[in-house]
């Protein structure tokens, strides 16, 4: 069997494990689909009560949509290897002949598909229940920006998986510590431009803000109050995709080398 076929199987195996397991617990509908969207609903209602331009409501819905992916990247990707280590499973990944990137990709794909099902509920709430409207848009442009954002975001999650493992028990606290600041610096519920230079810096580091801003531009045109032209944001997202995927490979290789040298990363008591 070729290496590519092996890694594709491994990716699908890990994706399947994540999907089938999650759909077995119907409580996710409440905890992962309904509750995370309440924040988004609150902003929509706030903008409506204040009489803000209607585009601001759509702006909050798009932010709420990407917030669900950010939660998944933090908890489903970043902290995952640490939990795998705690359960004693990480060493089985290291012994398997497939690439660790393939397993991480499976985790990412499974997480993405699950989160997409969850975020669909948010879109339903925003656009159907709350009646939020967007401008006529190009579907290919929307899909390409969304795809770029997702690849960059989940590649960041792959990097975090290795880094969080290196930092051990701090992973839990890191996830908690990163959630709100990144959400704020990405302007999920307000135009990123409001943050000024800080927004530009944040957008250059975390793909969440760039993705939100770019998606809003596709859906709302001038009403997006964009940070920078769409083509720049797309180009930056491409760069972030490449950088994070490369970093993920490097971090994984470093992690594996460290595990072999020190013997302390693959056993839960080490």
């Amino acid at each position, binding site marked *: 069997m070729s290496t590519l076929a092996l890694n594709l199987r491994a990716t*699908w195996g890990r994706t399947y494990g994540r999907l089938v397991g999650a759909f077995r617990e119907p409580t996710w509908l409440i905890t992962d689909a309904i509750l995370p969207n309440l924040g988004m609903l609150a902003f929509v209602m706030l903008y409506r009560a204040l009489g803000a331009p209607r585009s601001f409501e759509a702006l909050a819905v798009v932010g709420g949509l990407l917030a669900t992916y950010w939660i998944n990247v933090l908890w489903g990707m970043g902290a995952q290897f640490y939990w795998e280590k705690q359960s004693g*499973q990480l*060493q*089985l990944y290291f012994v398997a002949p497939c690439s660790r990137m393939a*397993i991480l990709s499976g985790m990412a794909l499974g997480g993405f598909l699950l989160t997409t099902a969850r975020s669909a509920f948010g879109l339903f709430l925003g656009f159907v229940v709350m009646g939020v409207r967007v401008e006529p848009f190009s579907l290919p442009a929307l899909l390409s920006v969304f795809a770029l954002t997702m690849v960059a975001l989940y590649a960041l999650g792959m990097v975090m998986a290795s880094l969080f493992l290196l930092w051990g028990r701090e992973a839990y606290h890191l996830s908690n510590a990163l959630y709100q600041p990144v959400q704020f610096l990405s302007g999920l519920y307000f135009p990123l431009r409001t943050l000024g230079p800080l927004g530009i810096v944040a957008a250059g580091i975390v793909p969440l803000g760039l993705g939100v801003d770019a998606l809003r531009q596709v859906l709302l045109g001038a009403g997006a109050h964009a940070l920078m032209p769409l083509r720049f944001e797309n180009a930056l997202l491409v760069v972030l995709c490449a950088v994070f995927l490369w970093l993920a490979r490097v971090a994984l290789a470093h992690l594996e080398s460290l595990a072999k040298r020190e*013997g302390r990363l693959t056993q839960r008591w080490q």
Partner: protein
Amino acid sequence: MTPDDPQNPPAVDVRGLTRNFRAARGGGEVCALGGVDVRIERGEIFGLLGPNGAGKTTLIKILTTLLFPTAGEARVAGFDVIRDAGEVRRRIGLVSGGESSGYGILTVRECLWMFSQFYGVPGKVAGPRIAGLIETAGLAEQARTRINRLSTGQRQRMNFARGFVSDPEVVFLDEPTLGMDVNAARAMREYVARWVRERPGRTVLLTTHTMHEAEELCDRIAIIDHGRLLACDSFAGLRRLVEGGQHVELEVRASDGGTRALPSLAGVPIVWGAPHPERGTRALKFRLPSGGSLADVLRELEARGARIEAIATRETSLEDVFVALVGRGLEESDEREDDGAGPTGAP
């Protein structure tokens, strides 16, 4: 060392393998493996016996590409564990006692299927193989049960099945029957023996704390302690190492006057066994060397207030060999092996 046939290299070939760990809190270095040489031919079931911290798990971790050696060379199925780690991984399976593989929310079948995909097993092959393994592991009724609803023993049986799901050339079983009940452990031993018999060239490296498991299964057994291989031979060959003298087992009433702290009686090294709570006695084993006086041992015991309830003599067992070579029983070790270190992580 005989040169390898490149068409048929040994399953495991280890030369001068050394692994040192940095001790915690600047305590220098601790040697977990000190120049081990082992050659395991294809088709063998090879046992590795040693007390906790002897270096067994360290050796297995190096052979399964989880750990770099400090010095020496190790090859599995003809491939170097450092340079050709990917090729080694394609050919091996690993089962560690007490591990918890899989995700609690998956069923037994789904978990095994997931791991089969990490080894690239095609779907048409994986299905029947997993069904067979589930049957062998006695988990047919639990095939559709979530892992988090399995008992510890059932989960360990599933882990065992996972190690064979890729039909590997070499399987490393690190205390695989830990947590299993007697019947399940017996079924697993029978499966391992049948698996090797029915698939020529397949090899098993087994570490175990159960002497009779090693006696029953292994073609050859190596005894390791403090990172050094003390002996390596068939059970018959090992027995010859300590033949001579007489193996004696006593049953002694527990009011032993402090004898339990003694390493020897009348100059004869002794090993205390587990207590018998109902009778209030404890087993005491020793090998009386040729010319040794049983009467002297009994006299010293009685002088210390112990009452001897029964005396039996028997043939040399693997445990006798182990005690003779290591100087203590397998159950006397006091630390969990952890890369040759204690639970503190030192080294």
